[in-house]
């Protein structure tokens, strides 16, 4: 199978590989997929007090398109507000990376990872608000 240049670029030079402290109250972690299915993505976002994503890191086990999709997502979310990030859809990733139909599930997984990371940070924030209230 031939990969698009964009997939190859992200695959060969993945952006923002790494780990943030998952116990940091300002870090949201989303881990989606399953080893048995051949892909697991972990996306982490660090959110400032005024709701801007200051940093994002990923690690992904999966095919080249899955790695490229998660690398792209870290670039897409940085500097955005939570609301803006919520609006990112898998088709944005498909278009940007020119993913073929058999690889659309990689983009869906990346969208799921964003949703999971957002849910985690929101839950953390809700918990701290409650604790301080």
């Amino acid at each position, binding site marked *: 199978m031939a990969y698009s240049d964009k997939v190859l670029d992200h695959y060969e030079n993945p952006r923002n590989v790494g780990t943030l402290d998952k116990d940091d109250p300002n870090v949201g972690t989303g881990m989606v*997929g399953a080893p048995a299915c051949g892909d*697991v993505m972990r996306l982490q976002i660090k959110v400032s007090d005024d709701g801007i994503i200051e940093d994002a890191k990923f690690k992904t086990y999966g095919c080249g398109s899955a790695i490229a999709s998660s690398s792209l997502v870290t670039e897409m979310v940085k500097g955005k507000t939570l609301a803006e990030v919520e609006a990112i859809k898998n088709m944005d990733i498909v278009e940007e990376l020119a993913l073929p139909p058999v690889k659309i599930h990689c983009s869906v*997984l990346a969208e799921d990872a964003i949703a999971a990371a957002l849910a985690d940070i929101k839950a953390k924030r809700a918990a701290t608000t409650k604790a301080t209230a």
Partner: protein
Amino acid sequence: MSSLNIPIYLDYSATTPVDERVAAKMMECLTKQGNFGNPASRSHPFGWKAEEAVEEARRHVAELIGAVPKEIVWTSGATESDNLAIKGAAHFNKKKGKHIITMKTEHKAVLDTCRQLEREGFEVTYLDPQEDGLLNMAAFKDAIREDTTVVSIMHVNNEIGVIQDIAGIGAITREKGIMFHVDAAQSPGKVAIDVDEMNVDLMSLCAHKVYGPKGVGALYVRRKPRARIEAQIHGGGHERGMRSGTLATHQLVGMGESFRIAREEMAEENIRMGQLRDRLWDGVKDMEEIYVNGHMDQRIPGNLNISFNFVEGESLIMSLKDIAVSSGSACTSASLEPSYVLRAIGRNDELAHSSIRFTMGRFSTEEEVDFTIGKVREAVTHLRELSPLWDMFKEGIDLESVEWAHH
């Protein structure tokens, strides 16, 4: 390093290049100046000469497996041979019984043929291999029934390279009067074959795994005691009615020559393959969390199938773009399922997804193996740095205990 030809071909079990000596022979059988006649033409020298060439090729194929030439039926490849053998024998014996025994790790050419027979009302038992990929003889004996008419077990597995005990199975099927078919597409030139010692009744062969051309194969059909099969392709009655169609002289000559060379060079080649395989394994074996799939000794020397845990096979193949190998990962298969062979030997999905098959052959060199070792180590290390599963493993988290969101 200057003599390295990139990409390096380490997928000899998928197919092999045609040996120059074979190609030269084939080219003599195509043009007006060459041996282009129809081997079935009885009325002129063009036909006689072509027939002579085809019969010489038949002798070469027969000799490699310890058969007589009359027992060789030409086909278009191992897929057709498997179909002809299994359907042919099952149909011929359908009044005697309708039970077939095979294994879960067979090639699709066998498994899908059996599926078709199930749709026609036959019953098929698909035996599980042991964890080392070999057939469990006790389970095999237990599976035999009064109405079992055909047993089909492959000689060398195409994915994991393990060699089944064909003689051991043949002794049992002969005693019980059951037809024994062996898919030996992967064995010529790698493992000695003697159809008499092994008590094989039907054996599928092809040329393109032995430095011959694609699109040609043969089925060995035993004469004493006679193996009876029903033809699947009807027409001009070629090959004693078992497989009609004009014989493709150049293809058959190519297969014959490739089998002749295989017989002559097998002993030497196997020693060299074993050295290359050991060199490759020695170069990677100290890496953490890697597993060889299939029995380490009961396998052909040119095959090394390794699962690199916590790395996904397709991405590994992408990183190894200078090396042509294949993977059991779902992402590289048309079905989007991980290798059914690795699943059958009890590997979990992760290990099946993480597997790479390296198969070496006649033109492989030490230099290529050394280059491969370097690339594999680099790629696996890089991908593990990217892998959340590797992180979790390093933190001591048992991945089996995690609740994954299956999708």
